[in-house]
């Protein structure tokens, strides 16, 4: 009887990608704050910092949830991906709703930061992932595909 993979073991590749993106986000943070300060002063800088923090937390949460689910089962990955999407959207909403009346929040810089950071980090990361896919020999140094499939019934 052919054994069918049910779950993965080992470090999650999604978590590695997310940590990569967090590093890049932290590099972009001072630049983003300077741009925010240029357009909307202190409030702009603070709003940009808050927006970048929200996006990074969102990415980390997404990766951790997917990694955790993939160690349980593939079915859990599907549920967690969709449930996590709803949960993270709700979290972002509450995070913005909590600070909406605070004096240091400027909504336009915050909104623009949310979109630009999210897309910017993804495109930045995608270039590296694409390169590693096209030239698998060059990357990864540490085994990115170290997740091992585990057949049903094995512990």
């Amino acid at each position, binding site marked *: 009887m052919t054994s*069918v*993979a049910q779950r*993965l073991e080992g470090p*999650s*590749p*999604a978590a590695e*990608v*997310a940590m990569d993106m967090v590093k890049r986000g932290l590099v972009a943070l001072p630049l983003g704050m300077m741009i925010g300060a240029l357009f909307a002063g202190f409030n702009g800088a603070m709003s940009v910092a808050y927006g970048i923090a929200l996006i990074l937390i969102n*990415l980390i949460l*997404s*990766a951790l949830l*997917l990694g955790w689910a*993939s160690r349980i089962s*593939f*079915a859990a*990955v*599907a549920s967690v*991906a*969709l449930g996590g*999407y*709803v949960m*993270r*959207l709700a979290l*972002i*909403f509450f995070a*913005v709703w909590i600070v*909406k009346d605070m004096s240091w929040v400027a*909504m*336009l810089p*915050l*909104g*623009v930061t*949310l*979109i630009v950071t*999210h*897309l910017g980090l*993804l495109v930045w*990361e*995608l270039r590296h*992932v694409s390169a590693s*896919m096209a030239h698998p020999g060059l990357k990864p140094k540490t085994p*990115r*595909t*170290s*997740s091992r*499939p585990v057949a049903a019934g094995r512990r």
Partner: protein
Amino acid sequence: MSILASTAAQAVELAQELNPEEAKANAAASGAGMAYGLAAIGPGIGIGYLVGQAVQAMARQPESAGQVQTTMFLGIAFTEALALIGFVVFILLKFA
């Protein structure tokens, strides 16, 4: 049809009672809610499809599961960007 017509008539009556500022605020509130709600539908369908295909790929080819998961994670994040755009429209209409 008659229910729709009567609702529309009631909405027109209500709008006539409101001053322009209130009417504008109400329109912005409904627009914001619709932007957020509608913008979340597409990515929801997209993520469901994407994850379904990725799980199928991982089950069929477990040896490439790591690469599939990386692609899935990035795909989810890209799809989520659409919902984020809807959310930003919402906060700009509602809170700005």
